[in-house]
């Protein structure tokens, strides 16, 4: 049954290249996460406003992000929008796809968090002479981020995992892309992807653990 010869050495020799890929993967995940949070906050504010167009934009974005596959969103960001003559590099397409997805999911989380913050908080801020923006910025937002910290950590893990979809838009510098290229050269499929899997696993664990540490330091109340 086990007449397959594992050739770990050959595969492990490629580890430095894969680690370079892991760096790109982290880069995409982190940038898409930061942008995602930013857009999610915007979307959340859009949904709070009474403006119909803003509401519609936010709802459309959020529902599409949450109800279609991430792969679809990324493919769309590259080949779909190119039908309008808008071209993004593979890196940018992947970044846009994941950011779009992150923002949609996070906005939904933020909405839940917002509901958990009594509106007397914002009122209290305004009563002290703060503008609505100030009271959102200094009072509501920090509390909202605290409540959604765990979902944000989960989304970060998702973002990391989603980078593996970049190959469909021609990305080959991220961890999955590098692994696939190496596989095309050597065909040590099992070994190479097992190593990639381990790297992904370690990355996600490091992220969840450090998130816990950060949370413990950040949220002392």
């Amino acid at each position: 049954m086990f007449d397959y010869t594992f050739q770990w050495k050959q595969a492990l020799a490629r580890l430095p290249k894969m680690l370079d890929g892991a760096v790109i993967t982290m880069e995409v995940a982190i940038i898409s996460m930061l942008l995602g949070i930013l857009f999610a906050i915007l979307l959340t504010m859009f949904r709070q406003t009474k403006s119909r167009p803003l509401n519609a934009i936010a709802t459309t974005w959020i529902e599409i992000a949450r109800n279609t596959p991430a792969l679809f969103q990324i493919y769309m960001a590259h080949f779909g929008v190119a039908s309008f003559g808008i071209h993004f590099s593979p890196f940018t397409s992947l970044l846009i796809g994941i950011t779009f997805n992150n923002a949609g999911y996070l906005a939904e989380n933020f909405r839940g968090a917002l509901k958990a913050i009594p509106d007397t908080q914002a009122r209290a801020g305004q009563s002290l002479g703060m503008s609505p923006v100030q009271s959102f910025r200094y009072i509501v937002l920090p509390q909202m981020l605290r409540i959604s910290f765990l979902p944000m950590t989960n989304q970060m893990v998702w973002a990391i995992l989603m980078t593996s979809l970049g190959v469909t838009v021609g990305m080959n510098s991220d961890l999955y892309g590098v692994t696939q290229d190496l596989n095309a050269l050597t065909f040590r499929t099992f070994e190479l992807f097992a190593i990639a899997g381990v790297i992904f696993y370690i990355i996600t664990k490091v992220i969840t653990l450090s998130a816990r540490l950060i949370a413990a330091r950040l949220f002392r109340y």
Partner: protein
Amino acid sequence: MIEIQNVRKSFGQLEVLKGIDLNVEKGEVVTVIGGSGSGKSTLLTCINGLEPIVSGKILVDGTEVHAKSTDLNKLRQKIGIVFQQFNAFPHLTVMENVTLAPRKVLGMGKAEAEAIAEKHLNHVGLGDKLGTYPTRLSGGQQQRMAIARALAMSPDYMLFDEVTSALDPQLVGEVLETLKMLAEEGMTMILVTHEMSFARDVSDRVAFFHKGIMAEIGTPAELFENPQHPETQSFLASVR
């Protein structure tokens, strides 16, 4: 001086204030009493412009609160308000709660803001809680912190909305003490309260609200000893 002139206010179909007239002079303490839903809280939130009104006028030191041209943020700095529900900012320490607005709104430096905050916190008896998070405070302490937070903006007027009614009975005293102290220092205040003996004690005038109407207003002696309006009589009978 706060001038309230024929103010009407509705929530949707529901008319909550049906033409209120009331002037509060500098240094005066006016207490508002009345049944639940009679519009007391609503009046306070209209005074500092948190709620729009349907008709009438509210003037604070001559500035019309609901005029388009009024800079509400600026106006609110003059008017401190403390609500029934505790609304300490849970993510900030007591000190940060109090210094936030002076720093961000008035642009005060950190040291200056903290000096002021400490003064007010000492004043309300929280001088030893500066670094504590509000979740660690009792309800009474939270309300006193809210008072200090409002005072740190050096307001000319203070509005208090049943600041003791969410408190356990043994904590009510410490907050009322603080209010009394403020009154004695000459702060202009409008107080909504259910504590009748306290109202009698500190008020210059007491107003009785009933279903959106100010049914009666007078000195504590007049209103408590000799209420004119039948609703006032039955209300006072029910709370005694």
